[in-house]
């Protein structure tokens, strides 16, 4: 490197991966990446960002999917004066063929910096850094290869879900199918921002919640089961006979004390009514305990990171719903929520904030959903705690 970047170099030290190392590697063949390093170093030196706020760029017919970024010292860094980000809608569960990944990278090397963020917390494949003139031809190439842009701004964001039944035996519904179906159904809401602010939908197949849907989505779909845990007593005994400390590791840690280990009869007993579906025993004894057979999901609302008000975890709206194509129940509910939020929400007010301002009671009335104890936000561990 001919550039001197002593402050950035600090970020290369230590055992962990470093984005600086990656940008430096790309800087050898891409001018924008080289200037990006310079901008970053200068920002650290001046202790102020050298990216301007906002920027409105896009592709024909879409209001979202591209995030405009401009450097405030373009004369110093002409090759990264504009450094827009494109969000590419990922396939449900992030299943790519190597061919499509190569295609994506080839397109981005042609039209952009060649640098990607796979994946951002939005779920999308993030293509980092291009110019305004390159946006449309890049988009055209992407669509030709079968890709589409994801959501940004005050739109429905790219819908994301866990890997689900494709690889996981605990998933209580087909997350991939649901994510794909909702994505296709709500193309307009994703591409053309129309609401007070962003709206996110995420789906996890079980309460382990691998995509952290409860913390990151306004509309959270978490798989659960309506019947009871399936316990294979022979497999349980096998664990215990091999030295597994079932009392300390499982029974004592059951948050609702629903499990009991009968030492005499070598049997794990379940008080089914007390089980809150926390997944702990299943996670600890994967070969012996499974979710029930009557799968579905709990619908929760309101999760978000802090901006106007603090962070919210989603809370229960519908304790149990069957999740099966054509998913009309979910779609109708979403449309009803959006309509109410759009009509009543202030600019940049997320759904949770609006509900808090106007009141859950009024929200439920508008939705036509009767209040149930499971909706109580605090204290609450799970919709199956009845009190």
């Amino acid at each position, binding site marked *: 490197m001919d550039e001197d970047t002593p402050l950035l170099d600090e970020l290369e030290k230590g055992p962990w991966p470093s984005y600086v190392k990656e940008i430096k590697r790309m800087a050898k063949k891409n001018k924008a990446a080289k200037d990006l390093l310079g901008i970053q170093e200068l920002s650290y030196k001046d202790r102020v960002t050298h990216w301007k706020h906002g920027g409105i760029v896009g592709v*024909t017919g879409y209001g979202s999917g591209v995030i405009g970024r401009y450097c405030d010292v373009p004369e110093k860094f002409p090759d990264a004066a504009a450094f827009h980000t494109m969000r590419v809608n990922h396939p449900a569960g992030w299943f790519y063929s190597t061919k499509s990944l190569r295609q994506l990278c080839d397109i981005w090397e042609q039209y952009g910096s060649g640098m990607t963020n796979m994946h951002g917390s939005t779920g999308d494949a993030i293509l980092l850094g291009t110019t305004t003139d390159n946006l449309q031809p890049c988009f055209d190439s992407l669509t030709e290869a079968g890709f589409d842009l994801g959501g940004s701004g005050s739109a429905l964001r790219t819908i994301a879900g866990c890997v689900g039944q494709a690889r996981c035996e605990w998933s209580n519904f087909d997350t991939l199918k649901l994510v794909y179906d909702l994505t296709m159904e709500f193309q307009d809401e994703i591409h053309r921002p129309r609401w007070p602010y962003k709206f996110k939908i995420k789906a996890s197949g079980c309460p382990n919640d691998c995509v952290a849907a409860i913390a990151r989505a306004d509309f959270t779909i978490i798989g659960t089961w309506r019947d009871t845990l399936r316990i294979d007593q022979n497999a349980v005994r096998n664990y215990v006979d091999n030295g597994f400390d079932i009392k300390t590791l499982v029974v004592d840690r059951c948050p609702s004390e629903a499990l009991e280990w009968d030492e005499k009869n070598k049997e794990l007993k379940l008080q089914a009514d007390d089980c809150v579906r926390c997944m702990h025993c299943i996670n600890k004894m994967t070969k012996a305990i499974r979710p029930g057979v009557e799968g579905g999901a709990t619908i929760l609302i309101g999760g978000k990171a802090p901006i106007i008000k603090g962070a919210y975890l989603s809370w229960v709206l519908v304790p149990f719903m069957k999740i099966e194509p054509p998913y009309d129940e979910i779609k109708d509910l979403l449309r009803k929520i959006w309509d109410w939020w759009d009509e009543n929400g202030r600019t940049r007010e997320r759904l949770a904030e609006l509900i808090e301002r106007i009141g859950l009671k009024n929200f439920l009335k508008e939705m036509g959903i009767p209040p149930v104890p499971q909706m109580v936000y605090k204290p609450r561990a799970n919709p199956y705690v009845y009190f």
Partner: protein
Amino acid sequence: MAKTTLGGIEMEIDEDGFIQEPDKWNKEIAEDIAKLESAYPMTEEHWKLVNYLRDYFLKYEIAPPIRMLVKQTGLDLKKIYQLFPGGPAKGACKIAGLPKPTGCV
């Protein structure tokens, strides 16, 4: 800040082509921006939206929410994207001479 000729006069614009002096805006300037935004020639419907945005901005010094814009003009969002391929913010607001809408993305 870059300069360009719009409606026969020299205007300052930002990186995204938004004019920097909204009070200098006139119909000729709007039409010249519309050419760059693939929204030319401007029909009565184009003007309906642009004039609405303009009036709203002069009154409230801010761009209206999308829902209000759709309700008040009677043009649905699909139609707006047909008229202004860049959409209401990048297309219509720019042509109406509004300052760049700020938004978190």
